[in-house]
Structure formats: C-alpha cells, structure tokens
C-alpha cells in the first residue's frame, strides 16, 4: 500500500518523501503483562473458573492433633520445685513488687527469714501452666506482671504484713492459707483473728455457761434457790399480764 501511494504521488524515481508517516501500532504479544481493557477485565473476573470441590476420602490424611508444646527441662525442674513448695507450705502469698532495689529486697528477705518465710521467684508462664488443672487453679489470674511468692510452712500473717508495710513497693495481691484462697482484705482480717486455742476456749466457755450457772446455783443453799424460783414465777406472771396489755394496745 505504501508503495502504490508512493507511485502515485512521487513520479520521479528515487525521491524520498519529506515526511514519512510511520505507524507503530501497539503489539498484542508483549514481553510484559499488557494492562487489559476494563471491560475485558470485568469479563474475565465474571467468567473465572470455579473448580468442583475435591472430595477427600475419609482415611486419606491423619488426624490433625493440637500442637502441644513440650516443656523444656528447666520448666520441668521448676514445676517439680513448685509442686514440692505447694505441698509443703501452708501459707502461699502472692505479692507484686514494682521494681524494688536489691537493698530493699535483701532487707525484706532478711526480715522474713527470721520468721521462716521464704521468698520465691518463678516465671509467670510456668506457674500458670502448673496451676491450670490443679487444686489452686483459681490463683492463676493473680500471676500477671512482676510477682513474688512468699512461702512458709506456718501461717505467720502478722509478721508478713508488718514486713510488707515497711517496704513501699510491695503490694499484697492474695494468699492461699490452708488450701483456702484469701484476698488481701481477708488476709488482714485473718491476721486479726485470735489464735485457735483462744477461739476454742471462747466457744467452750460459751456453750458451758448455762450449765455452769445452774451448777453454781444448785451448789448454794436450797433456800436461796427456792427464793429465786418464787421470784421467777412472780416475774413470769407479771410479764404475762403486762404483755397482754401492750398487745391489746397495738391491736387497737
């Protein structure tokens, strides 16, 4: 076509035209991904191939078990230690320390050691995984952040509380005394309780008060007893009369 055009317009042979119209149309087969026209894009999106769902025969793949992370040996040692601690000690207190110095810690440890209370540090993860299925599972939410365990075989709460009050940074979160979970306020009230023997003595005295009273009355002279009984009968009759009058007033 170009040759015929040239023949018509350029009669003289060997004469090149001044302007040469060159048409470089865009190729369809390119080395890069050609951007599709939007209509073609839409068409391709609508007509995408959806394969049929592949049916896996039931026995083909093994059962996908949960990934149980095995404990490292150090964790096992710490768990064993924790187990002995929990079994031996009657009192376990959980305290949060906001970055106390080594000096304060040493002083606190010394004070507590005098009363036989040990200070233990355990990583929270180990403690939480240890407590998960066990007896003390409800203590697990206490172990968040920097926590210290105060452990002792005898529940010496007063001394522990006084030592904690002296150090500003430590906050008592809770305690497990004699397998009972106590909050901070419960620990304070526990410390104010009198000792077991005192409480038992009070209970016994309260129960036997009446019997001891009657015993002492019988031991006195019988005339005294008869006078008391007569007075009692008089009071009963007068009370009965006076009770009847107020009741009538209330009804009216």
């Amino acid at each position, binding site marked *: 076509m170009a040759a015929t055009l040239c023949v018509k317009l350029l009669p003289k042979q060997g004469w090149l035209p001044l302007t040469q119209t060159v048409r470089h149309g865009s190729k369809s087969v390119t080395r890069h991904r050609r951007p599709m026209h939007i209509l073609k894009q839409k068409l391709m999106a609508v007509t995408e191939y959806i394969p049929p769902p592949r049916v896996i025969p039931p026995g083909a793949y093994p059962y996908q078990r949960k990934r149980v992370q095995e404990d490292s040996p150090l964790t096992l040692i710490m768990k064993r230690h924790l187990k002995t601690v929990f079994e031996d000690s009657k009192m376990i207190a959980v305290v949060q320390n*906001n970055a106390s110095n080594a000096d304060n810690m040493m002083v606190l440890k010394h004070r507590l050691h005098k009363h036989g209370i040990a200070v233990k540090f355990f990583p929270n993860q180990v403690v939480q995984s240890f407590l998960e299925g066990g007896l003390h599972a409800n203590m697990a939410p206490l172990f968040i952040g920097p926590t210290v365990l105060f452990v002792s075989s005898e529940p010496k709460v007063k001394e522990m509380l006084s030592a904690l009050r002296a150090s500003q940074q430590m906050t008592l979160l809770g305690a497990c005394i004699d397998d009972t979970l106590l*909050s901070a306020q419960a620990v304070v009230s526990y410390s104010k309780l009198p000792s077991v023997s005192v409480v038992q003595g009070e209970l016994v005295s309260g129960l036997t008060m009446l019997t001891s009273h009657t015993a002492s009355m019988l031991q006195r002279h019988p005339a005294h007893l008869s006078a008391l009984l007569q007075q009692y009968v008089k009071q009963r009759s007068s009370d009965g009369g006076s009770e009847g009058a107020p009741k009538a007033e209330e009804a009216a």
Partner: protein
Amino acid sequence: MAASGKATVVLKAVKKITVQFCPFESNVRSTREFLVMVGSEKARSTNINCEVIPLVKHDKSAPVVDITYLDGDKLVLKGANLTSSEMLNAFQSLCTDKDLQAKAAAAKK
C-alpha cells in the same frame, strides 16, 4: 507495653496517684502494668513527694487510677478497656501540659 516517647515517667506536677484494682478480675493487666511503670524507682526519683498508693480490693469493681495534681486537678483513668500504653500516653500528655504551665508561671514571676 511500649514506653511512649520518653522511657521514664515524669511525676513533677503530681501530688498523689491511687491505683485501685481487684486482682482476681481478668481486665486488670493494663492497670497493673501502669502501676509498675509509675511506681518504678526512676519515676519516683523525679518527685519524691509524690505518693503512689496501690489499693487491692475484692469487690469485682473495675480498675481505676486516680491522679491528683499539685494544682488540685484530678485525672481518672478507667483501666478496664484501656491498654497500659494508652493510659501512660494520656497521663504523660497531661503531665507535660501542667509542667509547661508551671514553667510559664514561674518564668513570668
């Protein structure tokens, strides 16, 4: 638990911080972390007169941080649905504002 901007918490304009929480609840992590950041030695050294008082309760109440400033203002942070870094940010921004105000007042005098 990223420290927001400066590593330490400056407590110069603060009179008292009361951190109240119930440790058996599940939403107290951020409040406890806030307490650790505020009660650390560095923070306390910026203002020795400032008191940091942790209160441990057992009444299923939401964790609350009550901050009283030297000029009488109060800031209440309810930590039930906040992260510790958000609480720190809010607290520090107010602290710096107060500091600037105090410095401006001192400069005027």
